[in-house]
């Protein structure tokens, strides 16, 4: 057995989650070994964003059963900021705007909290910031703007990826980071994801509707979610199959009670 199989970066075990008395996740299992990128695909309302929020510890959701392990340790009792400091990062589908909070100031405090004060000081941090912004085609003037305030859809997504690059998470969860981006934007964002995971022992979980971003990231495994369950998993070819045939055929098989491998 490979070491990464014993202690994967992320191990979701029979996770059941509800909100306001309605069960959304009905027992899902996902295991991401270190150095791998997985993707969850599925239609709106299938439970993808709930999965992301529960991994990050959103207080609105109630975990009714199962567990979420980060490198073998349960994180369910941890506050979101503790999860962040433990190495979990969530790129939001709809990031919050915070008028009055300057991007530069926010990034410095965030990096200081997650990676320690020394990482957020001096010329090393400035160089790292400059380099990451350059890769994402973000101008220096971005730093004096307010967090997500008046950002276009593409700017919001790039800013999420910038934060991911600076925080250097062990596990990056990206919730529809590709939506609303043009093809150049998708390529840029994909490069950012590859930067953080490929060639490292980190891991990533990409949540998406579309296969476009997966052409640039090439996930190791794809999970398809329908009705709060993972109904099938497979290699990168599964994304192409879904792109060509949609979800109807899968839904029909689920309705007929067919079991998937």
């Amino acid at each position, binding site marked *: 057995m490979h070491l990464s199989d014993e202690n994967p970066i992320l191990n979701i075990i029979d996770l059941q989650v509800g909100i306001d008395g309605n069960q959304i996740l009905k027992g899902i299992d996902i295991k991401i070994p270190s150095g791998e990128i997985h993707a969850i695909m599925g239609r709106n309302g299938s439970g993808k964003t709930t999965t992301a929020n529960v991994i990050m510890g959103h207080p609105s959701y109630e975990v009714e059963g199962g567990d979420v392990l980060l490198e073998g340790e349960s994180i369910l009792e941890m506050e979101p900021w503790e999860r962040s400091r433990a190495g979990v990062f969530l790129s939001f589908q709809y990031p919050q705007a915070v008028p009055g*909070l300057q991007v530069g100031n926010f990034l410095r405090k*965030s990096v200081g909290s997650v990676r320690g004060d020394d990482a957020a000081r001096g010329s090393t941090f400035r160089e790292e910031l400059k380099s990451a912004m350059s890769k994402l085609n973000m101008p220096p003037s971005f730093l004096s703007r307010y967090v997500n305030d008046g950002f276009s859809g593409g700017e919001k997504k790039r800013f999420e990826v910038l934060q991911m690059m600076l925080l250097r998470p062990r596990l990056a969860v990206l919730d529809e980071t590709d939506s609303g981006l043009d093809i150049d934007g998708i390529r840029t964002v994909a490069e950012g994801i590859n930067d953080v995971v490929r060639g490292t022992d980190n891991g990533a979980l990409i949540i998406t509707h579309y296969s476009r971003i997966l052409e640039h990231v090439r996930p190791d495994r794809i999970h398809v979610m329908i009705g709060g369950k993972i109904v099938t998993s497979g290699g990168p070819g599964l994304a192409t199959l879904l792109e060509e045939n949609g979800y109807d055929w899968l839904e029909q098989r689920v309705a007929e009670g067919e079991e998937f491998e």
Partner: protein
Amino acid sequence: MDPTSEYLSLGEPDRAVHLWRYTPWRKVHPTGNISEIPEEVSPPGLSLCCINGEVPEGVRLIQGSESVEGLPDSDSTTSSFMSAITANSTWTVEVDPGFNPGKTVVLEINADSPISAVHICMKVGTHSNFEFVTVVKGDCEWLGLLRTGSTGEGSITNDVVVNLLGRGTLLRVDSIHIDRDSQVVAGTISSGSEMTKSDLRYRMGQPGGNLNVLGSILSAEEMILDHHIEIHHDAPETFSRLDWHSACGGKSKTVGTGMLKVSEGSRGADAAQLFQNLLLSENAQADSIPELEVTENEVVGCGHGTASGPVDEEQLFYLGTRGLSSEQAKSMLVAAFLNSTLSEMGSMEMHNWLVEILSDDLDALGI
């Protein structure tokens, strides 16, 4: 009628009047005996310099003032009382026409006597560009600050008042006349004094006046901070905005009352008022009441609104996912809320200087 006679001829102001609805005059009066004008009143210490310590050229602090143009028509309790009590402590800040130093000028008012009062008259020269911060400090029991004046034709003025009094009561009365094509940003930052009553009035009596009133108010413990803002559009093509942010913690209370008056003949007036309150504890209280009196039909728009609520849970979650503890995140969100108005008050130099002052106060108040 002289101010003393005028004040003594007035009865106790009616609490039905917008200005006195929340904090009655007898609570604000220095002795509580509203039928008297105290005699033991000391002038505060004053100093005028730039943020970098230089003495500015083209701006002077001169003792005395020319006759004060009357406040716009409404309750005259505060104006007559303040004119009477500051009769021997009146100064003029005179700004040369065309003044444009690219530096922020600071007037520091230090009030340590039990009862202190001063009248500052601003005379901003035509076509000048004047950035002016008045910082109020000290440990007095009561400070009266009367600010009158006018901004010259075509001038640009950023006029910010910062209340950093250690305790006691601040009564602030402003009456500012905005001349033709003159642009004014009027900022208020308040995180000091146990009680504040402000009666701020602005009048645009000439066409082309442009006024942006901004507030960053931080209250904690058992502070009561009551600001009344009147904006008078008395000429065509005048523009005003009011954006007032109050963050209230502890058992404190903030009040914001707005009065927007657009008189007949003010065609093309464009005015809006917005009060936003951030409630930081269950026992904190914030009241905001904007009012409109519009007697001109042909306006671009006149509107008002108010919103109150606790710190946004989704914003807290977002900052938490970036490694910021709940306390850090809350503190940052309060600072951001106040900064979103503060950052519009003037230059980057002034903004950085003000943020430093406010950050110290946020820490000191434990928010």
